[in-house]
């Protein structure tokens, strides 16, 4: 064992000395390789953490949402539908939800107005509870500053800020403006007999399908959205194969794959000569291959470790500053959130396999050919 290790260490020494001769080229290769791993690993860690966060947080979302569809679009639903749904056996509670969007021309931001379901969180008349990002968007600098909103020119509605929600929940509440039902209806000028949609609480989760079938017969024009569908939407949104990763890193990975394959598989004349000399002075084919394996491993494992460690720091210690502008897009309001660090072992192993193994394979194949050929022919 000791002898084996001494031999391997000698081979590694030789490999490093050989790599050192083309120092700039190899260092830039490791830098680019690490950068690609960094981008992919950041996207993976970020989306896995967001996925977990969405899963945990949306666990308390309404079990079933009933929307009215008119001409393919979501419409206000009549209050009478609440009673229709409440009469279905197995339904525990039915509540009309009131929520809508408000474009604030003075800050250019979109707010989500909402009436909380829980009376404990419902603000008094003329009061609002704001999400963490709204005072930021409006520059409400001092404590107790009121919120003025203008629906059209010449119109100004004043709300007292009763509370600003903690930034701990920014991911779900950043743009919220919570008001009571009367204020909501008068602000948006809607009648007392309509809701945005209806949330249904169900006694036994396994009955959702049966209840939906019954409700579909009673409200044929409605659309039903279950909690499972809401969670699935987010799983799909943050799936690293679909949204984030493809958008962020797809092109970069492809470019690097071409670059690495070219670098690793095309053997330069100098390298071929080197192998010829080694063979001529008595190196075995096995030694040459072991040396190249060391080279591939040092480059790819090094890049993997550098890239992943940096990605972890980027996503969980610094709050993914490189992704923020991409995710932010054109929106004025963007939640300031910190994700719970989460490392998915399977994803990391996948990343290891898709970065290290192909690189080592690409290094080995041409060497195999050169190393098994006659040294005299290679050196000529």
């Amino acid at each position, binding site marked *: 064992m000791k002898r084996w290790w001494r031999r391997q260490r000698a081979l590694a020494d030789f490999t490093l000395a050989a790599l050192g001769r083309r120092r700039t080229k190899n260092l830039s290769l490791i830098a680019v390789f690490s950068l690609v791993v960094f981008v992919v690993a950041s996207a993976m860690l970020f989306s896995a953490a967001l996925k977990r966060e969405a899963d945990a947080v949306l666990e308390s979302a309404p079990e079933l949402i009933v929307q009215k569809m008119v001409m393919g679009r979501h419409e206000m639903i009549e209050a009478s539908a609440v009673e229709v749904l409440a009469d279905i056996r197995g339904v525990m509670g039915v509540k009309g939800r009131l929520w809508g969007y408000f474009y604030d021309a003075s800050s250019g931001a979109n707010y989500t107005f909402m009436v909380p379901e829980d009376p404990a969180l419902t603000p008094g008349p003329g009061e609002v509870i704001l999400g963490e990002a709204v005072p930021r968007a409006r520059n409400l600098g001092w404590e107790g500053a009121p919120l003025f909103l203008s629906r059209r020119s010449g119109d100004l509605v004043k709300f007292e800020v009763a509370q600003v929600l903690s930034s701990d929940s920014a991911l779900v509440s950043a743009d919220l403006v919570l008001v009571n039902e009367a204020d909501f209806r008068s602000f948006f000028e809607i009648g007392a007999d309509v809701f945005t949609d209806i949330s249904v609480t169900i006694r036994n989760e396994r009955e959702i399908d049966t209840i939906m079938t019954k409700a579909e017969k009673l409200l044929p024009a409605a659309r039903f959205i279950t909690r499972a569908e809401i969670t699935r939407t987010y799983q799909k949104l943050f799936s690293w194969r679909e949204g*984030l990763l493809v958008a962020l890193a797809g092109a970069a990975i492809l470019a690097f794959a071409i670059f690495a394959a070219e670098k690793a598989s095309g053997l330069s004349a100098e390298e071929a000569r080197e192998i010829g000399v080694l063979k001529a002075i008595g190196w075995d084919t096995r030694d040459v291959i072991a040396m190249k394996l060391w080279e591939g491993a040092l480059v790819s494992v090094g890049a993997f470790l550098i890239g992943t460690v940096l990605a972890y720091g980027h996503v969980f210690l610094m709050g993914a500053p490189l992704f923020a502008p991409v995710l932010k897009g054109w929106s004025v309001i963007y939640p300031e959130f910190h994700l719970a660090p989460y490392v998915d072992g399977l994803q990391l192993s996948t990343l290891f396999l898709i970065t290290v193994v192909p690189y080592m394979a690409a290094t080995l194949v041409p060497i195999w050919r050169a190393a098994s050929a006659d040294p005299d022919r290679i050196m000529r």
Partner: protein
Amino acid sequence: MSRRPTGPVFAGFGGLALLFVAAGLHAALSTPGHAERMAASAQLVGQVGLTDLALFTEARYARHPAMADLHTAFQDNPMSFEHFPSGTFVPVTEDLGRGRLGFSEAEVSQ
């Protein structure tokens, strides 16, 4: 002891491996604090009756992807692929309805 090139390089690898393990430890140790925060967020979701994350606030279908109109992403203009950058991340909703047509109830439920 001769100066071998593997010495500092192996030490560097050792350092990186330590950082790698430290990242794992950091993740494990900070879980309880974050679990508390997530529980508070989940409570808020329940209290207000929220359905979506406030990650993209620029368009209706990006703010509430789970509640958006069916196929909203490409609805507005056939040649406009996407108005907003966030459209890149927000895919078409999973549930596009039952998608069954028939002349009778029995035929549809087949």
